[in-house]
């Protein structure tokens, strides 16, 4: 019962958040909805016993990505004048009818693809009974340090690269006039 409650709440949060991201007109709010959605995903992870994933989701998204997003929004935002010196929109609109139309087209097409892929999968694997949840941390750690060691190391290099790269890219420099 408890698990089901949690699942329902998480699912609602996830889907609700995602849809709110779509319909939000304010980028800042969209970002907060995204946070909600990500929390929901963390809850969903918990429901299927992926405790470590859930915690990672929390740490990485809540603590890192979303704050980064917020920072980016704030650093690129400027409410006083909406047009920059090139005469372009500084904060572009969250979309208009045309883009929404194209987007819904894209969504429908992709939905078709996915549903086409998923239906056989669901047919082959009828819902089985839920196996009991087990702690995953040790097993995950063992897997990461043995079978997936290469991927693990590469991802560490990737992260390092991203760290250095991000720092280098966004470092304030003299403006280049082109």
């Amino acid at each position, binding site marked *: 019962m408890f698990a089901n409650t949690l699942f329902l709440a998480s699912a609602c949060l996830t889907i609700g958040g995602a849809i709110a991201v779509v319909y939000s007109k304010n980028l800042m709010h969209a970002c907060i909805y995204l946070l909600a959605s990500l929390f929901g995903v963390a809850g969903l992870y918990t429901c299927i016993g992926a405790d470590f994933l859930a915690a990672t989701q929390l740490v990485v998204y809540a603590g890192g990505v979303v704050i980064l997003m917020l920072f980016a929004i704030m650093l690129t935002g400027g409410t006083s004048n909406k047009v920059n010196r090139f005469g372009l929109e500084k904060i572009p609109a969250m979309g208009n009818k045309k883009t929404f139309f194209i987007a819904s087209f894209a969504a429908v097409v992709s939905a078709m693809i996915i549903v*086409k892929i998923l*239906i056989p999968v669901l047919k082959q694997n009828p819902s089985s009974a839920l196996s009991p949840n087990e702690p995953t941390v040790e097993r995950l750690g063992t897997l990461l340090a043995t079978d997936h060691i290469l991927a693990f190391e590469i991802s560490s290099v990737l992260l390092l690269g991203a760290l250095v790269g991000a720092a280098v890219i966004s470092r304030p420099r003299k403006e280049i006039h082109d």
Partner: protein
Amino acid sequence: MDYTLTTVAPIVLLPFFAFVINAFIVKRFTKLAVGISCAAIFGSFLYSLKIFIDFLSVYSTNYYIHKVFTWFDLSAGEHLFKVNMGIYIDNMTAVMLLMVTGAATLIHVFSTWYMHDDPRFGRFFVYLSLFTSAMLGLVLSDNLLSVFIFWELMGFCSYSLIGFYYEKEGAGNASMKAFMTTRVGDVFFLLGILAIWSVVGSTTFVDMYAALAAGKLNGIMILGIPLATFAGFSVFMGTMGKSAQVPLQVWLPDAMWGPTPCSALIHAATMVAAGVYLSLRMYPIMEAGHLTTFIAYIGAITAFGAATVALVQTDIKAVLAYSTISQLGYMVIGIGVGSYNASFMHLITHAVFKACLFLSAGSVIHSIHCQEMPQMGGLRKKLPYTFFAMLLCCFAIAGVPFFSGFVSKDRILGDALVMATENKAFIGVAILGFGGALLTAFYMFRMLFLTFFGEPRDHHIYDHAHEEHIGWNSNVPLLILSLFTLGLFYSGSFTGQGEVNLFGSKYEWFQTLIKKPEVSTVAQFTDYQREDLGMTDTRDKVALTKAAYDSTYGLSEEKAHHIHVVHRIGAVLSIFIAFLGIFLAYSMYVKKTLNPGWWTNKFAAWTRALKNKYYFDDLYVGKIIQKGLLPFNDLLSRFDMGFYDKYGVDGWATVNRWAYSVSRWFDNNIVDSGMVDGTGASVRLMNVVLRTIQSGRVQLYFIVLIVVLASYVLTLRF
């Protein structure tokens, strides 16, 4: 009393820790460092005293403590090799410990007064602590290897202390000379250790004695020499170096460059005695190697020769230095003539009165800032306490009855006389010994009279001398030491003949407790067992009864009587000689009835030889090193770099150069006209086509992607 390593080791470790701590703090906390040094040595003294009292209360000749632990272990497979270190305490060690720590404590105390205005006050104590711990380690060692280790460490300390005033050119020379001279002896000592080690399998004294008793050393020849002789001689060379015996005596007079308290501690009382101590420990080997005559003559020549040189010295410390060499010679005579006990006793008594003499000299020097005796005179009014201490010590060293020097030296000379009556070869030893005794009495009192009697010869110095007051660290140590110049402390009686009972039953304790390790008795060591670190002592501690002390030393009645008579003659003779020497000195330097100048003119050549110390320094430094070794080295070095390297090795370069020119010609003319230029770049055609479908709109790309993917997926059939 149960001994463990922890009740014995602090004797060594306290000063050593003091050294370690002081080495770091001395620069900033000089006073504290000095305090730590003094406290550490005093702690060692207390431990030693406890051990001494324990041994005295057991009062047995075969009581000893032996603690062993493994230093390192190279055993692997079938190869067994283990190096053990250990602590070995018997009666001799106990006495030695008490002497070393006692003298060292007093000298530490004295140094706090003597050195306190020196800029390197603290550093001096650092060296003293290290030195003391090394000496104590040597005394406590149970094997030759650790003796050697501490022996060398003392050599290093001595080097540092002689070179203490390193700004002075002479100090540097003297320190190096001291180290190198003793090093000559040490190299032989190491050789002796190796000889013993390779045969016995360990260097522990008790193992060695046991091997000797078991006859293991018999019949082994090394380079054509019997092992015992080879090893005994090698080890004795060590003694010659450390205890400044002819011909390795040259370093000790120069060692007076060091501060006076260190002279007192190192070059008079303890370190030089270590050589004699080692020889005493090794006595069975030396006896087995038939080295006694050789040793006795070395000692006799040293004793007499050094005494003659002392006659003409004008520096107060130089006189003392030569008297030290001379007295060490007596100890070596004692070893040579088999007077084991007396030799060791002389070591102890000499240490005490020589330490006192040096400290007194230090006191004089510190008061008048001058070392030359011709400029002194009449100081007895200014320095009454120093005078008193020095007087007692001079009595002791001259061999005046009731003083310690008499007790010990008389017995050595008596034994020498006994040997001379038995073996004609020893007659020279006896003559030189008695002659040296006469000279000793003479030059010591010459020194005393020149310093303290008569009128002041240099009024400037005299007037500026400080009035002496009793001070706990200036002259109290002297007085304490001078108290122990009385003979009764060592013999239990004033004359050494065993009549006065002072400590109840403990009369003649010294002669009872210290026994020569005869080959017949060293066999008792065969039953020893190694004990591990930290275990308690399980040795037999049953004391010998008093009856075991046999005044005839187990000799036949007739023989004992003979010895007794000869000893009496010797005693009378030495008393006479002592007073004769004192009288001569008195008449020359106080009454002035005899003119010393007349004598020096009469024997001018001799005087010159004496002033030049028998030309030993000239021979060693001037001839052997300057004329021999260094030019040879230069020649060798020139040969190495100038000839062998230049022509022998670099000669190949000529050959190579020729080959090189040939190959260069080949290279330039044939290979260099190659053809390695020609594959350019030509790949700029495709991008014209690709550029056209680049709109730069990301979302467009994305939609195209989705559509393409969709069209692909929808054609699939699952």
